[in-house]
């Protein structure tokens, strides 16, 4: 086993919930599959952009949002399979240097939706190293070693700090958790986001 895959693993639901407490203006883009269920399980929110398709595109949706909403923190929460399929996006994001964008990869080294087949991260591909080499301002790994709640709190703070782009690889266990399915209606998601952004904009101009 590669050294990057050693050490105790996080429980995915608790980790995502900890990232999204007191989220304020944070927008969340979730990658198709388990990441979308994890974000939904943490509580539905009009500024959640759930993906059910477009595998490999989640990080770039986050970049488009971050450029369009430069004063608002944006986090992409996705799986290792989606991140690997859009690996070039890490280079594209690093070149843009969006200070308000964070990428959190929930890495279980598996393709969970298709039967838990091993991904390239199981084979030793180091996403933290890739993001750092591309030029992310911050690239780190988190697992269940040491002061877990302290480390999770530090990651949550990073999402709001505006010193990105930030990359976080979260090593999570392969344990199956119940699916929490948010809406699959993309039009409803878009209209919800539009209304929420407009309501905030109206409130701030009052």
């Amino acid at each position: 086993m590669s050294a990057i895959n050693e050490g105790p693993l996080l429980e995915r639901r608790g980790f995502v919930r900890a990232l999204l407490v007191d989220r304020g203006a944070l927008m969340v883009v979730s990658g198709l599959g388990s990441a979308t269920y994890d974000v939904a399980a943490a509580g539905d929110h009009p500024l959640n952009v759930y993906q059910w398709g477009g595998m490999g595109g989640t990080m770039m949706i986050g970049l488009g949002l971050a450029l369009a909403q430069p004063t608002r923190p944006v986090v992409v929460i996705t799986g290792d399979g989606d991140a690997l399929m859009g690996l070039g996006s890490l280079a594209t994001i690093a070149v843009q240097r969006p200070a308000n964008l964070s990428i959190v990869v929930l890495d279980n080294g598996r393709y969970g939706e298709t039967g838990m087949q091993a991904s390239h991260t199981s084979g030793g591909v180091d996403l933290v190293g890739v993001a750092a080499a591309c030029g992310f301002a911050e690239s780190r790994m988190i697992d269940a070693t040491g002061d877990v709640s302290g480390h999770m709190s530090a990651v949550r703070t990073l999402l709001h700090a505006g010193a990105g782009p930030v990359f976080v690889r979260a090593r999570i266990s392969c344990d199956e958790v119940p699916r929490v399915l948010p809406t699959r209606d993309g039009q409803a998601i878009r209209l919800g986001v539009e209304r929420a952004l407009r309501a905030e904009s109206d409130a701030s101009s009052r």
Partner: protein
Amino acid sequence: MTTPARPTTSWPDDIFAHFKRVNIRQVAYVPDAGHTRLIERCIADADIADVVLTTEEEGVALVTGAALGGQRAALLMQSSGVGNCVNMFSLLSGFGVPCLLLVTMRGEFGEFNPWQVPMGSTTEETLRLSGFLTYRVESAEEVDEIVGARCDMAFNGSRPIAILLSQRMIGRKQWVAK
């Protein structure tokens, strides 16, 4: 005194003028010879985020995010890049967001490189099957009117719209020094 004929190479400036008129704020592209001048104009504009991509499909996702965030975006690519995007196009209809796509055509008029022909000859059908309305531009004189009208349709109707700039208009690629 006669007025000099308008140089036909100004068509990228016509496109850029419409980008500004409809308030395009993000322009994504993979570097491309046919789009060179338009890309340079976008890079030089402080109000446009120019996003250089590693593959065209990244741009489809970027345009989707821009629209969800309330900004208008345009996507520039060569016909070969259309094939790289097919599954990602599903984001556009899924979320119901607009997409303004400008494609420089290869493999259709005096093409030197036969490897450009398979994708160039299926580009327009691929786009239609993927939910785009497609429009071809055959000459530089048409660019202003066609691009202007299609910009409006893309953003007024939240539709994926593709404008195919013909290889005949763009000009053949010079492969060896004259």
